[in-house]
């Protein structure tokens, strides 16, 4: 099958590659770019393990072609740590609040939570639960993921994080 040249920005760096028109974006990221943080869980846009941020929107990269991302600005989980390599507020939140177990859904969760907090810096629990409803986790029962996002929101907003009473 004839290949198409694509260029895009991923985590701030210009990248390019030759792909078949049918190549999924997630495969381009994982196979061509060798960045394996973005995971494949369901291939039907249900689980959200492949979520990346494209031009300021959360997108499930398992159901988008790489050619459709031509010229776009993409952030993946590999682009989420602080410049000095330390964990960002969200990543730290997931660790501090025990918001993950097997870690497979975590990159997608973090990418979704990243955009959610950009759009709403102080979401309520209900808004968080609705906001991550496109991402499935099989291990945590979500409660601690919600707390992880609340922790990150507090840290980003410079306020003290307080766990809600059980």
């Amino acid at each position: 099958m004839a290949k198409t040249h694509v260029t895009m920005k991923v985590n701030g760096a210009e990248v390019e590659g030759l792909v078949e028109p049918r190549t999924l974006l997630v495969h381009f990221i994982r196979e061509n770019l060798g960045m394996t943080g973005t995971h494949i869980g369901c291939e039907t846009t249900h689980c959200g393990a492949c979520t990346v941020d494209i031009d300021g929107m959360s997108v499930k990269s398992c159901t988008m072609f790489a050619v459709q991302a031509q010229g776009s600005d993409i952030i993946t989980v590999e682009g989420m740590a602080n410049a000095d390599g330390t964990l960002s507020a969200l990543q730290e939140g997931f660790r501090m609040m025990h918001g993950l177990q097997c870690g497979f859904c975590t990159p997608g969760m973090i990418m979704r939570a990243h955009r959610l907090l950009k759009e709403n810096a102080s979401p309520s629990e209900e808004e968080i639960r609705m906001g991550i409803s496109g991402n499935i986790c099989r291990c945590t029962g979500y409660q601690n993921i919600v707390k992880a996002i609340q922790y990150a929101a507090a840290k980003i907003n410079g306020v003290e994080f307080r766990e809600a009473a059980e």
Partner: protein
Amino acid sequence: MNDMTPTREQRTAALEGMGCKRKRVEDIRFTQGKGNYVDDVKLPGMLHGDFVRSPHPHARVKKIDDSEALKVPGVLAVITAETLKTVNLAWMPTLAGDVQMVLADGKVLFQNQEVAFVVATDRYAADDGINKVVVEYEPLPPLVDPFKSMDADAPVLREDLAGKTTGAHGPRKHHNHIFEWTVGDKELTDAAFKKAEVSIKEMISYHRTHPSPLETCQCVCSFDKIKGELTIYGTFQAPHVIRTVVSLIAKLPEQKIHVIAPDIGGGFGNKVGAYPGYICAAVASIVTGKPVKWVEDRIENLTATSFARDYHMTTEIAATKDGKVTGLRVHVLADHGAFDACADPSKWPAGFFNIVTGSYDFPTAHLAVDGVYTNKAPGGVAYRCSFRVTEAAYCIERAMDILAQKLNMDPAELRLKNFIKPEQFPYHSALGWEYDSGDYHTAMRKMMETTDYAALRKEQAEKRAAFARGETREIMGLGVSFFTEIVGAGPSKNCDILGISMFDSCEIRMHPTGAGIARMGTKSQGQGHETTWAQIIATEIGIPADNIMVEEGNTDTAPYGLGTYGSRSTPVAGAAIAMAARKIRAKAQMIAAYKLEVHEDDLEWDIDGFRVKGLPEKFMSMKDICWAAYNSVPPGMEPGLEAVSYYDPPNMTYPFGAYLCVMDIDVDTGVYKVRRFYALDDCGTRINPMIIEGQVHGGLTEAFAIAMGQEIRYDDTGNVVTGSFMDFFMPTAVETPHWETDFTVTPSPHHPIGAKGVGESPNVGGVPAFSNAVNDAFSFLGSTHIQMPHDYWRNWKAAKQLGAVA
């Protein structure tokens, strides 16, 4: 003592040992996308394999034509049963003593069964190749309903077993019969029923569901022809067992097989068994001389890899009229699909289902299980439970509620009346198990007090009255569940897999600087072993957990162990860790005695080192002992500080818990709301409370999914109608309730640190709590039992059948 000297508390805290909410070390890589899962493994020249699968549930395979497929650019080979026969691998043994086709051999027995394996240069080319393989089928009548499997005119499913009157577990009654398993005293139990003042009987079904870890099953196989060595990276919950099984069936020397299980994205039992993908990828690598990757997609995972449950349990309890149980009788019809590939210890054709007497003191019980073949996917696995404990707990917990209803007793009171009493432990159950320890009354009463159970019942009575007056259309249910699990498989006297005893192992090596590495026979799939195992070592030998690296999943370096499933890691490997650590401490004591110039017996252990009794200033830290172990050991002693333990537990462990679900259901829509869910777990000694709480949250969420909607469903023609996350219920953060967790601690008397295991308890106890809540809500309308899953539609249907909806 000056201000700089750390206090006892500070020294203890510095270790981050047992009981500490230590943050997980795994999270540093997982939160940055730096995990290393199987699909992340890329080897030079790696090929990709994918399956042609059967659209039919039952059909003869007349012809497979691969000529067009082989013309597809990138396609290198098409492997069929005929190819596999040349290497004697067309069929493989299952964990349950049956055999299973690797690729369709003459006919197919379930929809999406593997028919041919296409190997290509990339996954897209493999997919192109699959579409060009032409398979000619002759459809045969499908057998879907297990209750019709042993009818006289039922189609013969397993032609390979034609005429065989004996199977792996005894006589077969019918050509679709797998085994009959009976336990307990039939005569005594029948007599108990004859003289019973009260009895109940109900057919309680536990529907077919699926573990569905977010990462599917996958592997990369690489055969090195020059060295004759096979390396397999795979999603394996039991890497050592996989290596042994591969060695036995592929006739390769075991030392030339390297099995590596890297990070695993959830297992839940789905990754215990052996699947055709592993065999085909290995054969393809041998045939092509290149590494071959096989990655299952979600539809394949749901429809062709190990299902869970599918037990239909006719349950009877005999009792006195004041509510004392006198006998239990259960007959199970177990739908195993096309091949009996259940993951059970060899001796137990129906796993540990004989824990079905639960937490209650039944004087007698009798259990019979019939396993049957149908045209469905094989491989009943212990999905977040220990070999059918979930089915057993559901069965007895539903039945106790039904009995309470018949006696007009409160379900919690009925349970309190029949619990095994604290003084009865170790308790010998009527079906043969020895429960190690328990204090059920305390757990139940704590649950009732914390939730104000009496007030909830009062509220329910008021709501029922309001419903009768037509003032509300909402009904309220209280789901009480009390469970006892049997985990920690297991003692070699009870448990083996294909003849391999189910011990587990740990090897600890301390280095001169006071750092160390622990290598294990277990394999975490998210349980946080790298964090918790180091905590056990920290407490046992006084080295900070941060200084201990835990490595799992590499059969070249880890001691032989039976892996992680059935909540066995903490009860078995957790004990192995403590025992290995104690060997290290014993040698350390000798070294310290030599260095401090006293007799060993004059030393006492003090948090992170040894102190001379009565001379508090004479102290040697474990860190210093590590250094001494490599340069100044007593004359005649071998240098070094390492130990290995293979732990064969004397008994299983029996964690338990008391759960309560408060649910409201709108009868006109069937829409339910879980208003409150309280879970009290007793898993003995708690290693990391944060991780325990996380495990409980996760297990409850899976229980919620199963009870309230998740089902692998077949239509009458054998077609799977729940083949993707579109129609297989996966709860998101929106549906999932808030969880309240609580605990009591009743240590296991035979485990070195008293730990019992917890990962599966919330699933085992959770499902009956949800189902009992729904059934309790409807009970005042006259129903005794409504089958799961209790989704909105079924709730509405129940309300309609009971006359609550016009």
